[in-house]
């Protein structure tokens, strides 16, 4: 654990330090990049519970990311147009805590539904089912002209958080960073809990789990629900960062990118998604500045990681995972 802890701490400090420096140096765009990395990392942390610990290769996590985004978009849209929500005669809201709560609940419910249908299968079937359900939600979003259809929804002003000025890039970054750290801490607890052990064991040896009287399906479903809820929360923050949500947040490419974030950083590593998100955003920014075809380089890097460096960035820095305690 020793070396991985040091790497984790370094990542946490790096992600905090860069925007603080950028604030001092007067480079708000760098703060925005760091915020983007923190939010993508949060989405990856959600996915990592299912993908890393649970071994559930979901190629449909963009559903939850996009759902969180639309929770933000729809609530804020009704608030800014002073129209009530359909179905319930309630006003929209510009309050982040409320939006987050809706996103988390929606993500959890959607994950329960998709999980209940997909987790009965495994392996390739599971991958293809999550992909297909993701695509289904994508088309559904494209089809809803009320909320912008293909063009998506814009909001005029970023939503508010009590006691903070979210329009200030640094304050919004710190909010996202705090959420990320809180969720990582909670994930560490979950991973070390009896549930976390059982989930990891269900990946490594389902027969053993049966033999101790537990049913892998239920464990996986709960993990999938937690995973979906966290990714939805990240989606709400991501949409707030951009003040925009569109079906592209639900696309299968987004699902692929979320997996890339987890794997670039290190599958099943607590800070893997943080490393992966920092790496992805940095590559995107710098390579994207050099050539518009930067994704060729991203693809090549990804291939190299898959074929030759399977532990991802944290694996390269901290060596093989060491069991804790």
């Amino acid at each position, binding site marked *: 654990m020793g070396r991985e802890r040091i790497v984790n701490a370094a990542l946490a400090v790096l992600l905090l330090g860069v925007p603080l420096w950028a604030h001092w140096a007067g480079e708000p765009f760098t703060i925005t990049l760091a915020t983007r990395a923190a939010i993508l990392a949060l989405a990856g942390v959600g996915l990592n519970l299912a993908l890393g610990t649970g071994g559930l290769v979901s190629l449909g996590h963009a559903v939850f990311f996009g759902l969180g985004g639309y929770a933000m978009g729809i609530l804020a849209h009704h608030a800014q147009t002073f129209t009530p929500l359909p179905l319930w005669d309630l006003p929209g809201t510009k309050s982040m805590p409320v939006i987050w709560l809706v996103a988390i609940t929606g993500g959890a419910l959607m994950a329960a539904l998709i999980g209940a249908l997909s987790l009965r299968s495994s392996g390739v079937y599971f991958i293809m089912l999550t992909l297909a359900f993701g*695509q289904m939600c994508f088309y*559904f979003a494209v089809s809803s002209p009320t909320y912008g259809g293909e063009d998506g929804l814009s909001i005029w002003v970023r939503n508010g958080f009590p006691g903070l000025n979210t329009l200030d890039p640094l304050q919004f970054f710190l909010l996202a960073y705090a959420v990320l750290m809180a969720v990582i801490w909670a994930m560490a607890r979950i991973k070390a809990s009896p549930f976390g052990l059982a989930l990891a064991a269900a990946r490594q040896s389902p027969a053993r789990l049966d033999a101790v009287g537990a049913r892998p399906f239920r464990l996986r479903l709960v993990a999938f629900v937690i995973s979906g809820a966290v990714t939805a929360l990240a989606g709400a923050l991501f949409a707030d960062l951009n003040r925009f949500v569109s079906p592209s947040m639900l696309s*299968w490419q987004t699902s692929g990118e979320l*997996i890339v974030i987890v794997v670039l950083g290190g599958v099943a590593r607590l800070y893997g998604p943080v490393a992966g998100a920092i790496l992805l955003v940095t590559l995107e920014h710098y390579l994207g500045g050099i050539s518009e*075809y930067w994704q060729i380089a991203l693809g090549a890097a*990804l*291939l190299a990681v898959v*074929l030759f460096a399977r532990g991802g960035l944290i694996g390269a820095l901290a060596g093989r995972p060491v069991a804790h305690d």
Partner: protein
Amino acid sequence: MSTVLLLEQLLNGLQFGVMLFLMAAGLTLIFGVMGLINLAHGSLYMIGAFAAASVAGFTGSFLLALMAALAAAAAAGALIEVTVIRRLYARDHLDQVLATFALILILSEGTRWLFGSFPLYLDVPAWLAGPVRLPGGIDYPRYRLAVIAVGLAVAGGLAWLIAGTRLGIRIRAGEADREMIAALGVDISRLYTLVFALGAALAGLAGALVGAIQSVQVGMGEPVLILAFVVIVIGGIGSIRGAFVGALLVGLTDTAGRVFMPILMQPLVGQQQAATVGSALASVAIYVLMALVLLVRPAGLYGRA
């Protein structure tokens, strides 16, 4: 709704279905024989379309264009099999998903770099242009009929290949027991390259044929790829027959949905929105079909449980 329109839509569904089959056959073969999930199959479709569009542009010959599509996709398939894919057979699905996702990024951006972001167009050749009068007085595009015929011919050819040739016996043996055919002295890595190139060629052919109906552009492969996944999940992964039945089911469901959903939606949401809402719900219909099939048969229609 008239019978003529109904029959026309039936043919449209059939045409879409056989195109999906060309994609799905390769995917399901590659999964059945090598145990590989290949997200980059859509890129091979795209490569076929681009090869056809460029060769048609240079030579003006549609047949040459089709041959170029087959050759380019098969060559690209063999190349990526030898360089990347064969390192993935022994890996878990996550590695396969990621590596083939990486291939999509490389192939898509590479194609954009070579051809630019503007779509290319592939013209239907003169000898296939225009409608043909079918029994019952239906005027139906000659080209689409030809596409259906090509698709059915390929399906027949594949069935013959699998059931009646030495290669087919080896492919079936490879599905059943990899160690066994290696022990029998079959050069397994050559067999795998061959199967992968065959699947790629079929995808390339599909891309070229569709390229004359839609525009040829980067990213055209992935929506088709996902539908092909739906097809093989419905049909049962690894089964060519399942891919065929699944492809026709999906093709017909999708087409029927696109035609009838807007009509069904009109009283609900009004004429203006019926088209958008209806077509989106039509795309959802396929997934509902898939969910229903899997509820009844978790391993697909022809899958081994």
